């Protein structure tokens, strides 16, 4: 017999499942002390799942020209962090695809580095964030995850830890 109470309980159970699924996909467990220390000094240590393995290889192969800054580290540390990133890298679809090299004849320009913020997934997740919020001095950049994601340093990007400054 399915009385009204049973139906309400079932609906609640289904609702909690559908609420939890996206929250879990915004939590990242992969952790490594070298990644945390080296990648996390100038920006949030971005979760490895947010780029594909080829994209991480491209980033780690050009640390001396890292989005406008020199982020070079010793070869041993770079290899260890690179292996961690690739081991925990994301699949195509959610992670931004690797940048495509220029095919222009004679072009000696290095291909642009992949950006997490360029992925369709990232754009969709942040579509409701007004440009004026990004421009605030205490936010300043899409790379400043912790400005809104208060538990970003623990890999927790869930709604629960989200505080958009106003």
């Amino acid at each position, binding site marked *: 017999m399915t009385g009204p109470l049973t139906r309400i309980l079932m609906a609640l159970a289904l609702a909690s499942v559908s609420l939890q699924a996206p929250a879990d996909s915004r939590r990242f467990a992969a952790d490594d002390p070298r990644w945390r220390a080296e990648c996390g000094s100038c920006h949030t240590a971005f979760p490895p799942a947010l780029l594909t393995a080829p994209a991480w290889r491209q980033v780690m192969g050009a640390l001396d020209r890292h*989005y*406008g*800054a*020199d982020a070079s580290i010793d070869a041993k540390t770079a290899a260890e962090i690179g292996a961690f990133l690739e081991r925990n890298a994301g699949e195509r679809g959610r992670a931004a695809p690797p940048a495509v090299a220029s095919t222009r004849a004679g072009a000696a320009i290095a291909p642009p580095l992949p950006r997490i913020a360029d992925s369709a997934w990232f754009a969709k997740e942040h579509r409701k964030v007004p440009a004026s919020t990004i421009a605030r001095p205490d936010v*300043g*950049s899409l790379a*400043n995850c912790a*400005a809104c994601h208060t538990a970003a340093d623990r890999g927790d990007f869930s709604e629960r830890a989200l505080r958009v400054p106003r």
Partner: protein
Amino acid sequence: MPAQAVVASDLLRGYETAARAQSPAFQGFSADRGGRLFRTPQGGEWSCASCHGETPTGPGRHAKTAKVIQPLAPAANPQRFTDAAQVEKWFRRNCGDVLRRECTVQEKGDILSWLVSVK
């Protein structure tokens, strides 16, 4: 194994020894000169202060990512300048970003003299 713990004065002594070995005309480090160098762009877009802030006892903010950077002056942040390898790594990279070259021992000594003088 963790790097041997040092303090800023150990590093300064090391820079002084290196500077004397490089040039018999070495006149010592100048905190004033270091402070000016820290705050002044050196032909490029950034100065040290672009990310570390004008006041090294307070936090800075990365000029590109806007991430908060903890204070650089040991008076405000005792963990600074306690690992020689880290210090050399950051000088190498950040001097490259600000001056488009590595800093001289004189420049590193001047900057560090200024940072330890700020209370």
